[in-house]
């Protein structure tokens, strides 16, 4: 059963804010195998990042906490672990890349310092060895002339190069799972593709499980094996990329797909989804997408739909998917 690197079961994470309790992650389940990439898609505020932070147990304290559910990393539940034990998991077994390479590196230290720091935090080894391993780490993400790069400061590098270094730092301790939170959003389009291909290549080589958070369907299509679409704290549809793109079964997924611009055909005006996502502290009783859904039925407004299997590994939480 446990060929999954990561298995998340019915995860609930709440944030207490000044507007009240926000159910940022409200019953999310998914699983990722080694070498597999799961795309987590959704608009801003749908709970993607909160889900990722929950996995690392790094929800903003003291407001956020996991109230229910399991996070199984190689079969081992992280939720009840102590902070001290979690520190050993972070970085070493789960790593993360964030959106903005400009602020992901500490401006006052050289690249070498920072890569070695990441290595040192996880394995105690001699200094000379450390240098060699830092060079290896940079080489792995195809940084040209890594020996020289070790001596440069972040502000002397381009955004794409910095993001590679961030990747090198994340991958240096050889984690099992990499969480990439919109890693290419801040990069030029030309660099984006390069970076994605690089990630993909490294992933194959290391057999890395990857959770790829994005709102860009183009990237999902290129990078991911499976996709989960989040809306207002829940996964509304998940499935293999191809199936989900071809036959989206949840109206929200469908609407998202429709609003992606296409190259072929004459474009009148991009369809958009009317209305706003619901405020997470005042959720409607039924389906959360109901107020904006064009197929809405009376039942949708009162009862949250269960998750129905709609194909091989393809599931959707919508009454219309009911067999």
């Amino acid at each position, binding site marked *: 059963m446990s060929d999954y690197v990561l298995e998340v079961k019915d995860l609930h994470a709440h944030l207490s804010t000044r507007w009240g309790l926000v159910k940022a992650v409200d019953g999310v389940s998914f699983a990722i195998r080694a070498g597999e990439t799961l795309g987590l898609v959704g608009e801003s505020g749908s709970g993607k990042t909160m889900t990722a932070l929950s996995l*690392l147990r790094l929800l903003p304290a003291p407001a956020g906490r996991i109230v229910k559910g399991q996070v199984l990393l190689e079969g081992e539940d992280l939720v009840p672990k102590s902070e001290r034990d979690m520190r050993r998991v972070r970085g070493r077994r789960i790593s993360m890349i964030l959106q903005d390479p400009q*602020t992901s590196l500490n401006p006052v230290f050289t690249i070498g310092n920072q890569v070695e720091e*990441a290595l040192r935090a996880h394995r105690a080894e001699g200094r000379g060895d450390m240098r060699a391993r830092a060079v290896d780490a940079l080489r792995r993400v195809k940084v040209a002339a890594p020996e020289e790069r070790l001596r440069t400061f972040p502000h002397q590098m381009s955004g794409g190069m910095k993001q590679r270094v961030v990747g090198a730092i994340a991958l240096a301790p050889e984690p099992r799972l990499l969480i990439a939170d919109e890693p290419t959003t801040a990069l030029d389009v030309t660099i984006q593709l390069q970076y994605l291909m690089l990630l993909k290549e490294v992933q194959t080589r290391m057999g890395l499980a990857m959770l790829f958070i994005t709102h860009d369907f183009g990237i999902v299509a290129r990078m991911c094996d499976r996709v989960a679409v989040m809306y207002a704290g829940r996964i509304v549809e998940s499935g293999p990329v191809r199936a989900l793109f071809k036959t989206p079964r949840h109206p929200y997924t469908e609407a998202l797909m429709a609003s992606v611009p296409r190259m072929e055909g004459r474009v009148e005006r991009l369809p958009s989804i009317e209305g706003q996502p619901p405020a997470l502290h005042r959720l409607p009783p039924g389906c959360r997408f109901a107020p904006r859904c064009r197929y809405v039925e009376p039942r949708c407004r009162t009862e949250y739909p269960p998750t129905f299997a709609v194909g091989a590994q393809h599931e959707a939480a919508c009454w219309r998917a009911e067999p």
Partner: protein
Amino acid sequence: MARLEGHLPFPAAPADADAAEDVAPRSDFGRLPWTAFVIIAVMVVVAVFAPLIAPHSPTEQSLPDKLKPPAWQEGGSAKHLLGTDLLGRDLFSRLVYGARVSLTVAAFALLSGGLIGLAIGIIAGYLGGRVDSVLMRVVDATLTFPTILIALLLAVSLGAGLRTIVIAITVIIWARFARVVRGEVLGVRARDFVSLARVHGCSSFRIMLVHIVPNVMNTFMVLLTLHIGFVIIVEASLSFLGAGIPPPTPSWGQMVADGRSHIASAWWLSVMPGAAIMLVVLAFNLFGDWLRDWLDPRLRQV
């Protein structure tokens, strides 16, 4: 501006090219606060080599020579360059040794007050929440006390002396450091490398020490220099009020106080140390201003 020229999206107008040439050389060398540097350098040298520079002992009394005016005035002599005081002590020598007191107090008080403020600011800013609220209310409370009053109180209860002055000034200035540093930490903490450090399993203590401290160092250095002048003034004020360095050790503030009652007949007694205080404080403030401007753009640019 100078940095942008190469990236202007429009073909640069000829006027721009001229402007660029004007700006470039001035930016590095010409804008240094030379006056301030010179005054500070002179003061430091004088304080360090006081025994070599002072022509007389600062405490040596010579009643026949009392109240001699400065050398350039009628009745003055080259023996006492800036004249003598009521007890016939050489004013110039006393000023020279007074510089020692001012600098010593400034160094110790800034070191202790600054470091305490730095630590508290970082803890408050990084941990946030209740810790932050409590610490910042203490800061607010400290800042509401009238500076001189609290220093006087301490001086009276602890007994006058160098140590007391340092403690008194520390008590006053740590809060100013704490508040500014905390604000800076809030900005640094929000940057991704701090989150990534946590993702990598760094402890809070390590993050504060390794990632936050170096990033607020610029601000801290600027605060330090901007406060040197302030500390010198506080020390002078305390000495002026009699709660500072006990005589006969010369201190500028105390010298101003001593000469006060003779301002009409022997103006130099108060004016010379007063001028010294003014020049030095002005120099340190100019230096601090310059340091802030010099460090700031780099901070933003990174």
